[in-house]
């Protein structure tokens, strides 16, 4: 059991982290190469990475807010904040990151049956199963609800045929959670279901897509007569859009958090000062000051919305705002990093150029900035059309 008093909890947590976090895991790195994604085929980059994961699993710290019975630590919001504070204080890497933690977990916790939760959540928490997300299709991007991947009821199983695109790390994932069409005659939002599919099933294949940043985080995923057991629909059949909307909201909060936490973390001035040109150019300096101000304020907005949600004043559509502002901010920051770096930042030999190029996807993935603005104008402002 965790101590319930915040300061007692902080003390215990701090001591535990000090004793258990390997030195090599105290560099705060969070780039693609340093992240532990877990999964059946995961190759640990070091003994320290393995040790750190195993130790955190015993405490539920890979998914600190999940209930203890599903592999979490059952932390409340205040304790969660302390957890992140203390992790930052030690500059500790997160022991495990995955789409299972970020996306499927919250969906199952909200919509799943007890059996689904018991069966699928603990392996995510332990880093044993790696999940990917199958939403977009070649013909269904911003207009996601027009997706056409077919899922037919064959009595004792479902039969899935179709293609997904932008499935992050599908080539490395063990399972996929996907939106599929279970009723082709219903209005487009009302014939969609949310299914779980084993990537080892016959008929599933993937092909990585190389991005401008040089990496291939996204794949095309093909389903050719894939049989899926009947109990692998999450939520009600044909009500998958509810799950999808819930998860999209969650995804946007997560992506925007990347922009917000940067504001709360290392100041942009310090980042830019590392470069040779630094902040001596007054134009660059002024732009950086504006970006810093906006970053701090977006970070506070993230905090405010979390506080509001905790006080029962949740505003789901607010996630569209955070996603839009957070990702646009992130793009601005990386533009500044590149400008400050000058010709030093133009090579593939450090991470500035790849990071800069990667941010260009931030305002597209998980719903484009333009879709976010349309959501706000309709749902928040009540504008017609």
């Amino acid at each position, binding site marked *: 059991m965790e101590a319930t008093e915040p300061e007692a909890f902080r003390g215990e947590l701090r001591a535990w982290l000090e004793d258990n976090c390997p030195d090599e895991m105290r560099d705060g790195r969070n780039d693609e190469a340093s992240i532990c994604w877990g999964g059946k085929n995961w190759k640990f980059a070091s003994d320290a990475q393995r040790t750190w994961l195993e130790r955190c699993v015993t405490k539920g710290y890979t998914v600190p807010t999940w209930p203890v019975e599903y592999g979490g630590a059952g932390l409340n919001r205040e304790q969660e904040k302390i957890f992140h504070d203390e992790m930052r204080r030690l500059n500790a890497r997160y022991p495990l990151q995955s789409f299972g933690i970020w996306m499927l977990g919250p969906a199952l916790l909200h919509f799943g049956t007890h059996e689904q939760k018991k069966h699928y959540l603990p392996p995510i928490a332990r880093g044993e199963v790696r999940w990917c997300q199958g939403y977009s299709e070649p013909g269904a991007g911003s207009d996601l609800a027009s997706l056409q991947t077919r899922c037919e009821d064959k009595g004792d199983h479902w039969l899935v045929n179709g293609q997904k695109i932008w499935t992050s790390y599908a080539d490395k994932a063990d399972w996929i959670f996907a939106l599929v069409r279970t009723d082709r005659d219903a209005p487009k939002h009302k014939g969609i279901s949310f299914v779980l599919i084993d990537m080892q099933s016959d008929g599933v294949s993937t092909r990585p897509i190389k991005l401008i940043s040089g990496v291939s985080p996204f794949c095309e995923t093909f389903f050719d007569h894939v049989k899926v057991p009947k109990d692998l629909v999450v939520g009600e059949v044909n009500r998958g859009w509810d799950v999808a909307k819930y998860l999209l909201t969650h995804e946007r909060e997560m992506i925007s958090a990347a922009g917000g936490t940067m504001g709360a973390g290392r*100041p*942009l*001035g*310090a980042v830019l*000062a590392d470069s040779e040109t630094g*902040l001596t150019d007054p134009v660059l*300096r*002024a732009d*950086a*000051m*504006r970006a*810093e*101000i*906006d970053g*701090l*304020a*977006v970070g*506070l*907005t993230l*905090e*405010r919305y979390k*506080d*509001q949600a*905790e*006080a029962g*004043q949740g505003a789901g559509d*607010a996630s569209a*705002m955070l996603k*839009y*502002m957070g990702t646009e901010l992130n793009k601005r920051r990386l533009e500044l990093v590149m400008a400050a770096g000058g010709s030093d930042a133009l090579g593939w030999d450090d991470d500035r150029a790849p990071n800069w190029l990667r941010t260009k996807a931030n305002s597209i993935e998980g719903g484009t900035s*333009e879709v*976010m*603005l*349309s959501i*706000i*104008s*309709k749902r*928040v*402002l*009540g*504008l*017609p*059309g």
Partner: protein
Amino acid sequence: MAKLVRTDEEALLAEAARGFLDGAAPVSRLRNMRDSGETADPGLWKAMVEMGWAGILVPEAAGGSDMGHAAACVLAGEMGKTLASSPFISTAVIAATALRQVSDRRATEALGRIAAGQATYALAVDEGAKFDPANTRMEARADGNGFRLNGEKRFVVDGGNADRLLVLARTGNGLTLFDIPSGREGVSRERRATIDSRDTADIRFDEVVATGEDVLGQVDDAMTVLKPALEAGQAALAAEMAGLAAGAFGMTVEYLKERKQFGVPIGAFQALQHRAAHLWCECEVTASAIMHAGRMLDDDPGNASLAVSLAKARATDTAQRAVQEGVQMHGGIGMTDAFDMGFYMKRARVAAEWLGDYGYHANIVAQARGF
């Protein structure tokens, strides 16, 4: 730090303020004041005093409600939505905060007079076109047991009507803050017609006598008293500007729903929808910075500078964006004097300059963030 969500007390205060201001101080009240050639509205201030707003930062022992800076920001925000014109920030926020830094009987009595609506104040700091208290030149020359003040202060907001002036001047080894009646011999006030139609004055000091009694805090150490007062004022002004932005934005969104062109409400056009949605995002982000500044001033006032400057910078940016979009999206009517949007634009410009513009506060943020 306290949470970034309104307390029940703050929510009730906002509701009460909105109810009162919608009835007593719609934008038409400012318009009438302007049209009558006045720069102050003593009747409105009297009503605010009766609501207890003058004492929002005054200790209960001195007759105030002592609700704190976040609450003062709530009030200022509601005032901003309909451009209610009053010496609230100068008197109830800046002067009250300055006086609270001094714990003598005289200061307590002065706080009591503020809460009771018996004294209004103006802060006389600026000497050039930009806010820059550290480079104050006006001299308070030592003279016997006291001082003689000589020089000119510009852009003294609420200075044309205030009963008392807080004057920043250079003394032997630093800066000193004086608290003197505006009617003292040698003080001459010239009212300026600023674009926001509100009270601003340039004030000359000609051999004005000040005694040790008139010094607020210690000689040569103005900032101990003034810095918290400035930060309180800057936060409240930022809140007013955020309220102003919300007011201008609300009018604009309503217009987008009403105004028809090409047979449809213009709010059906995506070009306008996205601009309106972006503006809403800016308003939301700024609201967070305002609430954070209020919380910091209440919970950790010694370390509130970054939060306050962040709020003032963001509010300045957002308010100016809101009024520019407000005029543009209203089209022809937006540029007429008969329509209220112009009042919002003019107040935003004045408030942008008062107590430090975007650049001034951006530099404070940058410094605090290691630039």
